[in-house]
Each structure stands twice: as C-alpha cells, then as structure tokens.
C-alpha cells in the first residue's frame, strides 16, 4: 500500500474565487501539505509558477486576465526556461465532454469537475504522482501522452507514425472526470 507524503510536495492553487481557494488550501493542508501557494488569476499564477517552481498546479478554468486553459498552454512550452512538465489538475465547474477534450489538448494532466470532494482531489493527486505519463511533442501538441489504449484499429488524422507505442493503460480523462467522490 502506498501513500503520498504531501509535506514533500509544493502546490500552486490558481482560482479567482477566494472561497474555493480556502477550500483547496484546507483540503491540501489536511492531506499534509505545507507549501501551498495561491494565485487569483492566470497572470499571477504564471509569475508564481516561475518563482516557486511548484510540483503540482491546481487551476480553475474560468478566471480573469487569462484563464486556466491559457495558463496550461503557457506552462506547456517545450522550449521554455521553466519546467514545462509539472502536472496540471484542472478543477472546474465546466462539466461538458468537449471541455475535457479542450483541456486535454491544452496539456492538462487531470480533470476534476466540481463539486469538489476530498476523495476526488486526493485521487487526482495520487494519479499524477504515482503514474506520471510521458510527454508527447508533435508539430501541434506538447503535453502528457493523450493515448489511453493501444487499439491498432485507430485510423484518425492524428495517428502517430514510426515506432511501437508504449501506452500506460489508464481510464480516459473523460471516464475519470465522470467518477464522483
């Protein structure tokens, strides 16, 4: 059985709503985290991301200045001087399938639909810590591997060429987002 030592992890929480930040801070501190930094908009979050070098980013989607999706895209710059690989957990009130696809394509690692629960948050953090995925760089994508299965029948436009795929068997982001609790 495995546990996470939250006191060894540094979190950046980005949400424009002070109540949700308070809830996230309470949950993370209860898990055992000591270092939890907070930003109330995407621009401040990006600045804090460079300064504090967090291990995990938890970001809301709808925020002023620039939103969580744009924040993810700015972090996922393969040639940036900062760390483009930090796990990003998108915590949002958006609950439509197309939003999950958009988040995935922006390089988000995990998606957690509100209402938030302690278990849901814990499981997402456990997932990004214990099961990190390799990153894929193509001409129009840079982020965690979006493949979740090894079907050879896929003939879509984004079929990768060259080499056998090494795929970690995981439920899709959509299936995980559907899991409550």
């Amino acid at each position, binding site marked *: *059985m495995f546990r996470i*030592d939250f006191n060894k992890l540094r979190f950046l929480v980005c949400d424009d709503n002070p*109540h949700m930040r308070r809830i996230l801070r309470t949950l993370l501190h209860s898990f055992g985290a000591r270092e939890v930094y907070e930003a109330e908009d995407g621009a401040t979050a990006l600045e804090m991301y460079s300064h504090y070098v967090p291990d995990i980013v938890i970001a809301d989607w709808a925020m002023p200045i620039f939103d969580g999706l744009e924040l993810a895209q700015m972090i996922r710059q393969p040639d940036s001087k900062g760390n483009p690989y930090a796990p990003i957990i998108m915590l949002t009130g958006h*609950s439509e399938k*197309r939003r*999950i696809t958009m988040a995935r394509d922006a390089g988000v690692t995990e998606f957690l639909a509100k209402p938030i629960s302690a278990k849901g948050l814990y499981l997402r953090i456990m997932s990004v810590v214990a099961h990190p995925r390799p990153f894929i760089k193509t001409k129009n994508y840079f982020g965690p591997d979006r493949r979740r299965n090894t079907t050879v029948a896929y003939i879509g436009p984004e079929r990768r060429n*060259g*080499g056998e795929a090494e795929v970690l068997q995981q439920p899709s982001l959509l299936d995980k*987002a559907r899991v409550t609790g």
Partner: protein
Amino acid sequence: MAKNKAPAPPKVQAFADHHVITPPNTLKHAIRRVIDRDLDDPVARAEQALANLSGEFKTWMRSECDRLSAAHTAILKKGFDTHTRGELFRAAHDIKGDASTFGFPAAGAAAESLCRILEHAPDLDAVPPDLIQHHIDAIQAIVREHNTIEKAGVANELSARLRAVADDYLMVVNRDRPDHLEMISAPSIVPKE
C-alpha cells in the same frame, strides 16, 4: 524560493512525426510504502476539516449571490459587453461549481442554467430580460429561504422549471447553429445527485 538542484534532463525518443519525452520523475520521493493496516486516512481527515469549515458556507453563499447581483446590475446599467458578460458568467459559473459543496445544490442547478444562456444565446441583447432576471431571483431566493423551500422540494422544482424554459429558448434561437444544438443537448459528465 526556487529549488536549487536542477533535475536530470528528460529522455527523448524521436520518431517520424513526434517525440516521446520522459521527464525524470521528480515526485517519486513523495511516495511512501505503508503497512496495509495503516490507520491514517488523509481523505477522512480532509473531509472532517471541510465539515469544520461548513459553518461558514451560508455566509460564503450569500456573498456569491451579492456578486451575482452586482454583475447583473452592471448589465442592466451598461448592457452586455465583454467585461460585463464575463463578470456575470464567472459569478454564475462559480455558484454552479460551489453551491453543492456549500449545501445549496438547487442554486447550483439554476446557476448552470444561467451559464448555458450566457454561453449559447447567439445575441445576449436579444435574450428576454425576464429570463435572466428570473434566474437571478431564483438563485437568491433559494439561498435566502434555504431552510424552508429546500426542505419542501420547491428549490429543485424552481431550478428544473427554469432550466426547461431556458433550454426551450436556446433550442429555438440556435436552430440554425447545429454545433450549439449539439452542445446544448450533450449530457453533463457530472452525475445527478
């Protein structure tokens, strides 16, 4: 307070049209093996901490309603523009996401209906003002009269009727916009309570 030690470079495999990059796992130091009968339960601890916070939820919900009301007032004065629409959408969207956590799920459902109008109406200036006003009023009434109407099931009924009216409106005004019709009809990924 940046970390001093630079991590090892990632392992890169090049293929015909993509690279597979395996960064060093900088988080594995935080994983700890524990005995199977370890009694520490971080999730239970966090749920208890959340329960301890719950005394503040009603106050928080009221302040969310005040924010929604202020955003709506700004629209009544100035009309819809990028800023006023964004403020109203974010206020409603926050209620949609937070209300269940705060113990007001019916307010969250009404706020979701308002978000759908703001997101999918092709011309916000053409939306009947009463449709938006009724959503604002309903959310405030559900929060204000929480103890009475929530128990009687009135809050859920109110939210459901608002959603039905809003959906009917959105289906009509988007009849020539199949992409929006598809989005309006798509089920939520969040299971109903």
